[in-house]
């Protein structure tokens, strides 16, 4: 499974790669939104926080005609940059395909970064760029294979503020479609779907961690209307869904405990339709 290049390098240097454990898990938050956040902490800071904890944040802006504006666009880019992820702005019809594409590319990128770091330790500072292209092609093959085999956990964080309403059927379809893509992978994949703003809170878990989303799931019913878009706080709450994360005490008090008190495990299912 590992390329000869890697085996060669290990043989030469006598090192064992820490990276190449079979059970690597990639974690991502995918924000689907149509505009600027206007409530709570900065979503860019929230994304940086997620990245610190090994979670990549990707953002998709869904627009109709050209309503998003320059401010919304730059926010989307900044969130993705801070979250170590990718972003794209698309029409609702393109959403399903973009979700799949962005997730895959972000995965490739994360693995590439880890591999590159490993190679830097072996080959010196410049890492992979110092390899001749033919060798790099072998690394690419290895990255591809690792991407397919690794575990993947994705939280889809959907903006359900009023302006998203006409786009919800596309979002719905994208969720179901994404579930099919995840199921087609060799590695273990899980997804969860959350919406923001929630009823009286920043975010609501609509579909808890699952390996398969049934088509019958309906998100569009009872959307919180109004102008509040707490993207930042929603990202912070989404981080809490990843079990590996140790939240700092203050955040833990504010989000995780509150989260579980409000909808403890048993009640989570109530939010799934």
């Amino acid at each position: 499974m590992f390329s000869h290049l890697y085996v060669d390098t290990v043989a030469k240097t006598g090192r064992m790669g820490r990276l190449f454990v079979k059970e690597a898990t990639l974690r991502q938050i995918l924000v689907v939104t149509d505009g600027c956040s206007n409530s709570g902490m900065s979503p860019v800071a929230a994304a940086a926080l997620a990245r610190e904890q090994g979670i990549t944040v990707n953002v998709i802006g869904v627009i109709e005609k050209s309503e998003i504006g320059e401010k919304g666009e730059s926010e989307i880019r900044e969130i993705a940059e801070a979250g170590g992820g990718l972003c794209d702005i698309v029409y609702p019809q393109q959403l399903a395909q973009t979700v799949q594409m962005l997730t895959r590319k972000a995965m490739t990128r994360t693995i590439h970064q880890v591999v590159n770091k490993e190679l830097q330790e072996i080959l010196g500072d410049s890492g992979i760029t110092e390899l001749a292209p033919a060798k790099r092609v072998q690394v690419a093959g290895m990255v591809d294979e690792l991407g397919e085999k690794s575990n993947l956990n994705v939280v889809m964080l959907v903006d359900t503020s009023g302006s998203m309403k006409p786009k919800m059927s596309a979002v719905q379809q994208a969720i179901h479609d994404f579930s099919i893509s995840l199921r087609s992978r060799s590695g273990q994949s899980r997804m969860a779907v959350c919406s923001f703003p929630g009823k009286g809170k920043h975010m609501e878990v609509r579909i808890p961690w699952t390996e398969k989303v049934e088509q019958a799931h309906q998100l569009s019913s009872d959307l919180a209307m109004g102008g509040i878009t707490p993207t930042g706080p929603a990202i912070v709450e989404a981080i809490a869904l990843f079990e590996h994360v140790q939240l700092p005490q203050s955040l833990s008090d504010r989000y995780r405990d509150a989260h579980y008190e409000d909808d403890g495990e048993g009640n989570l299912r109530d939010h799934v339709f």
Partner: protein
Amino acid sequence: MLITRMTEKETCVTMSSKVTTSDLPRRFHGKWNKKEYHVLRELGRGANGAVYLASCSGVKQAVKVGFEGMDLLMEVNVLKNVQQGRDSRVGPLLCDVDDLVINGKACTFYAMEYLEGDQLDQYVQKKGTEWIPVLMVQLLARLDILHRHGWVFGDVKPENVIVTHSDKQVRLIDFGGVTKLGNAVRQFTEEYDRAYWHQGDRRAEIAYDLFSTAAMMVRLSVDSQTWQTSQGEPRQTQLLCGIIRKSEGLYPYRVPLIKAFHGKYATAQEMRAEMLAILRESTAAAPSAPTQKQSASGAGGMWISSLFVASMLLLAGTLYYAWFL
């Protein structure tokens, strides 16, 4: 502002590769292999990069410059692997992989054989729909080779198939979707994606490519308006079957098409053989049919009634596939 963003997709996508390929110099040389390229014009854009027509020591080549190096290299990896068995040409030959420097940043590119030809749909538009079955049979032969090497093409669509000017051969271009059998399909287009049509998942299987091929055959045979009517919700292959029933060109091929929709073929070769048989039959039967009609007695009557029986059997088969599978 925003509209340019939309057309120049991917500009927003990455942070590490802010290099946009529009900055590509007219003339450049590879950092490692030192080959010199003279860029002539842009040929198109895929999900992983832009393709340019360039000349390298007097030979025309297609050069693909990546938005993100790793994605492009994965494509090269596949192209290389597919080329290990060169019994027949499936796609373009890989000529060079190298880096070029744009605005001080290294950017990966690869050069491949330039296939001069028409995109499949444009070719059909120019030459007529009677070419479709012939081209499909050819395409299935190419896919079969790919499958036998353990790969699935993934993104079968008219834009990724070319009919060469020189020898009228079908060749696959854009290997960005090519996936190892059993892995998740890397790239797809919804219109031809079996998961989108609720006919299975996106695991790279031979049947995945055959579904796309069948859907593409329907697409090529009808005008875009008819095709649009099949795109409604919920998307079901019954809609495609409806089109097939009404189309004179598709109707004879209904059995292989429906079998492909339902994943009933184990290999592309099997589907190809059945389509080829129908193609031969239709070309043989076409000119003799009117003369037979004039003497519709004795042997002619026998011939017609046997034809009737055969068509009833085909109809029964179609109904069986449409309803029970």
